[in-house]
């Protein structure tokens, strides 16, 4: 049998090529966060929060969180739905490639794209927005956001296996955009309507944002609390994924 590591490397490289050459994906995930930061972040970049934290750094952290979730939900999720629609999974299933390796390659690819997306955003914020933080702060944001992205991978996977290629983009937008907005990723929470502020603490992206906000020194909940919420949502989304994945497999391969 062929070595699994060699398969994983080749599979990951192919995934990267595919994503990179799909503008709907690469543009959405590299350019859109920059655009959003330009509209919603740049105008306030020189201000500071009441505790002295730079507003620019705070908003950059917010949009970095948005960007990573977006790669997971849009890239990973819609990608899986489209591949199912094209019956790519059928041929792959007949090869010796273990499904776990194929999935891991997707996860690695999503992480790599997330990293790229954050770096692009941060460099843009530094150069154009004049946002200044220690390198360690930026590295901390990157590490936390990548490590904490698991619930969004699971959400993407649930959307990818739970909906068809046409419905998946709509689903992803319908779920992820309101989620990001209501969690204060587009504008600080205290500027949002009262009912949204009351809902936010129950949303995964709110706790995900906390990981990034605390890294730049903004007021935030304890790290353990964020992690507990994210772990809970990961379990929830994985359960949904397991359900839709099993349904799909029993339809196609039983």
């Amino acid at each position: 049998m062929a070595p699994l590591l060699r398969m994983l490397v080749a599979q990951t490289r192919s995934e990267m090529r595919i994503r990179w050459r799909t503008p709907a994906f690469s543009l959405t995930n590299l350019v859109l966060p920059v655009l959003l930061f330009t509209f919603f972040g740049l105008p306030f970049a020189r201000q500071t929060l009441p505790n002295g934290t730079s507003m620019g750094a705070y908003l950059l952290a917010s949009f970095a969180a948005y960007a990573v979730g977006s790669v997971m939900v849009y890239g990973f999720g819609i990608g899986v739905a489209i591949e199912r629609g094209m019956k790519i999974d059928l041929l792959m299933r007949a090869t010796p490639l273990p499904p776990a390796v194929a999935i891991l390659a997707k996860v690695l690819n999503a992480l790599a794209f997330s990293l790229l997306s954050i770096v692009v955003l941060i460099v843009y914020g530094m150069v154009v927005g004049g946002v200044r933080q220690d390198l360690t702060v930026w590295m901390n944001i990157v590490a936390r956001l990548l490590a904490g992205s698991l619930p969004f991978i699971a959400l993407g996977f649930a959307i990818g296996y739970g909906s068809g290629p046409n419905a998946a983009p709509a689903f992803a937008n319908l779920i992820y955009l309101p989620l990001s907005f209501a969690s204060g990723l587009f504008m600080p929470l205290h500027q949002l309507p009262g009912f949204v502020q009351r809902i936010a603490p129950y949303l995964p992206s709110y706790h995900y944002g906390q990981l990034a906000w605390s890294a730049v020194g903004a007021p935030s909940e304890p790290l353990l609390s964020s992690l507990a919420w994210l772990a809970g949502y990961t379990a929830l989304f994985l359960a949904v994924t397991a359900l839709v994945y099993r349904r799909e497999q029993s339809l196609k391969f039983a």
Partner: protein
Amino acid sequence: MGDAVSPPPSVPAHPPAGPVVELIAASKRYGPVHALRGVTLTIQPGEIVAMLGPNGAGKTTSISLMLGLRQPTGGIVRLFGLPPSDRRARSRAGVMLQESGTTGVLTVCELIELFRTYYPSPLPTDQAIAMAGLADKADARVATLSGGQRQRLYFALAICGNPDVLFLDEPTAGMDVEARRAFVASTRALADAGKTIVFTTHYLKDAEELARRIVVVDQGLVIADAAPRELMSQVAAKRVSFAVPRRLPAEALAGLAIAALDASDHRVRFLTNEPEMVLRTLFHRGVEMHDLEVVGADLEEAFLSLTRRPEHA
């Protein structure tokens, strides 16, 4: 698909142990639909087997079971003596599926190189590309390929792992004459190298030309399993039709070696293996006819004669 390049001979690495494929009373139900009703079939190394049958006969289901893409509802399926989904078994099988797709944004070369990594001792990429006749398209993105070229690509993906057995589901569907000719040549080269080949088709011609064994499947059952020549002698190969001024009396056609008789109106149609003999008898019996036609039967008709055999006993 050029015939110039031959694949390396199959096997010695693996001891020429048991059969490649075993179906033992394998059945498959999709809800109320019986796709396979207990098929027993053994395929030995080096065999070239055509699974022949009309649409919906159970050919694709058979292949799906052999590949572990579907699980049998009853019976046993083995590939190289293992459950077909076992990675050790799959590592020795190449597959071309009827309805599968592939990503459009990779190039032919990139996609083949990816698939090569799935197998323990793959063919060199350029050899797989040459055997599939895609040398001039190696750097083209998959999305730009024509239907026929895409079929060639799937063929390349099936052979690039240098598998011991090839499963090809309707490989010639959508191929033009030239592509088909090249495909036949490549498949022969693989067969000469000792590969086992299992393919489905609903073209009798494909089966005759390529296979050394034809398994005829109809309504989920194997209704014939023989070498092509042997099978052809069982199949009523000619369709005879002619017009008559009056409805024929039943005794005019009595005792003739014909099948699938339709004499309901002023036109008489039937299948036979011995058109000369049958017509001579009819003339002897004084049957008046005009507008006589004798043509090769198509597969559908040939099957009629197999499945409704009692009629011409």
